[in-house]
């Protein structure tokens, strides 16, 4: 459990974090997204107290880290695994020795260290590279070793700063699988920092968008993707490209989450609205729920408000597309006119 309240970090004149309130429950995967320089890494560094907060508190596993003495703080930090932005492996140690480092410093017995290193390398699928040096590994392989090392002391919380940035989709997918497995099998609480929306869609339960040191939007991923008026939602679920639309149709953007929408919504909508052209569609598993995004074409003479309310009644967020903009909006997550 990570409880952050009023967290502020100031460097000289620059306020990098500005009153952050954020809670990650036990066994939850939280993602923090945001543009470069938003303060994401600083947030992670304040959680394990690599940086001292200027104000506010960080409570991990019930302990307020800033209040601890040197010895207690060291003990508390062992509960928090950290995966660094660029893996940060020691160049002169092999993969296995890198993973072993925190355990050796912890004073574990040789046999125990060897056993755990074996287990961890197996978990990250790197046993075959145990005796390679970092310079002999690919970026993705280094990142895996970094993850294994972050898990070496069996932390209850794992902070992963850009664990997948710069990796190919294949490596990204397998690392995400690995992280989800940690939560599912070991109950680890995860804070994942990323700028890749794929990562958020793929594994996060909740997401917070950081900008200029403030959380500008946050919520459970399922809730966020249903929002019609939110930039984060649009970033999370960009619309699939629409092939050239036929003439004489009004285009509508629809979003829904399958858990609140009848599987037969399309025929029901059509029964009320008449002909309905399906122009593009994408359904995807997000935050444990399947989410759909579609573009449909309707008779332009239909009353836009009526269309919107028909969809709303079905649990679907509908927006009329107008030449690069969006007209009437309605839906499960609220009503806005742009």
């Amino acid at each position, binding site marked *: 459990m990570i409880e952050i309240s009023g967290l502020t970090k100031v460097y000289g004149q620059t306020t990098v974090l500005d009153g952050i309130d954020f809670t990650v429950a036990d066994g939850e995967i939280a993602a923090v997204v945001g543009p470069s320089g938003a303060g994401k890494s600083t947030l992670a560094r304040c959680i394990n107290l690599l940086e001292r907060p200027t104000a506010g508190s960080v409570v991990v596993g019930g302990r307020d880290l800033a209040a601890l003495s040197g010895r207690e703080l*060291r003990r508390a*930090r062992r509960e928090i695994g950290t995966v660094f932005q660029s893996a940060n492996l020691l160049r002169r140690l092999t993969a296995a020795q890198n993973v072993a480092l*925190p355990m050796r*410093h*912890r004073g574990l017995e040789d046999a125990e260290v060897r056993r755990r290193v074996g287990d961890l390398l197996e978990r990250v699928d790197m046993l075959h590279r145990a005796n390679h040096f970092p*310079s002999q590994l690919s970026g993705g392989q280094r990142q895996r070793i970094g993850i294994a*090392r972050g898990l070496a002391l069996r932390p209850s919380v794992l902070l992963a700063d850009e664990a997948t940035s710069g990796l190919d989709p294949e490596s990204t997918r397998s690392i995400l699988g690995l992280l989800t497995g940690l939560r599912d099998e070991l109950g680890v609480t995860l804070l994942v920092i990323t700028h890749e929306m794929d990562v958020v869609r793929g594994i996060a339960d909740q997401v917070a968008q950081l900008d200029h040191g403030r959380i500008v939007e946050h919520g459970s991923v399922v809730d966020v993707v249903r929002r019609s008026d939110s930039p984060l939602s649009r970033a999370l679920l960009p619309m699939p490209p629409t092939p050239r639309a036929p003439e004489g149709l009004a285009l509508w953007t629809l979003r829904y989450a399958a858990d609140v929408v009848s599987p037969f919504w399309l025929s029901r909508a059509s029964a009320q609205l008449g002909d309905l052209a399906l122009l593009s569609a994408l359904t995807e598993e997000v935050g444990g729920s399947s989410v759909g995004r579609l573009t449909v074409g309707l008779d332009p003479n239909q009353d836009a408000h009526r269309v919107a309310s028909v969809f709303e009644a079905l649990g679907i967020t509908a927006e009329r597309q107008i030449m690069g903009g969006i007209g009437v909006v309605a839906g499960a997550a609220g009503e806005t006119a742009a």
Partner: protein
Amino acid sequence: MIPLLGTAWHDVPGLLGPAVWETARTVLIVMSVVVLVGGPLGLLIFNTSPLGLTPNRAVHVSISWIANLGRSLPFLVLMAAIIPVTRWVFHTTIGFKAAIIPMSVAGVAFFARLTENAVREVPRDLLDVGVASGSSRWQIISGIQLREALPGLVAGVTLNVIAMIEYSAIAGAIGSGGVGYLAVNYGYRRFDNNIMLACIVVLIALVQLIQFSGDRVVRALTR
């Protein structure tokens, strides 16, 4: 006037051999002091700096200042200035004992800087790995900082050894033994060209050998 023939070639090894040994012994003794004192000093200078593990301005500034002091005087001046100390410790101001104190002072100051530079090259992020996993300060210094800086430290030792050979030759001028003494006394004062030549060849060979071996070790340690 005596023709400037110099020492016969077959007598050169007899003179040169003990001189080389004298130089080697001096440098070896000095280098152990240098590494044992200069190394920790360099670690202290770096780790009390704003980039280090325990920033402490007062300690950083004062130790830094002392290390600079040891390097600001040309060795010849330092050596002369330090003679009273040498006399007090060893009750002599000539011979290889006399060279040890000024060489150690200059060497320690030099190596402190070389050590500081070597550990500065270790990315801060790597130290954070230790901090974040709850390692103790000493574990981070020995297990991460020194370990990662090892190639740089070996390069520093190589540089320092060569500087000490040079200093030992300068110390030859005030009557310490070694190759420098031989070169000054025979080669310079007695115009013994054979000895001069032999000294030059030996010094060049020595320095080349040390640099070559140092580079080899650095390469072997770099991953």
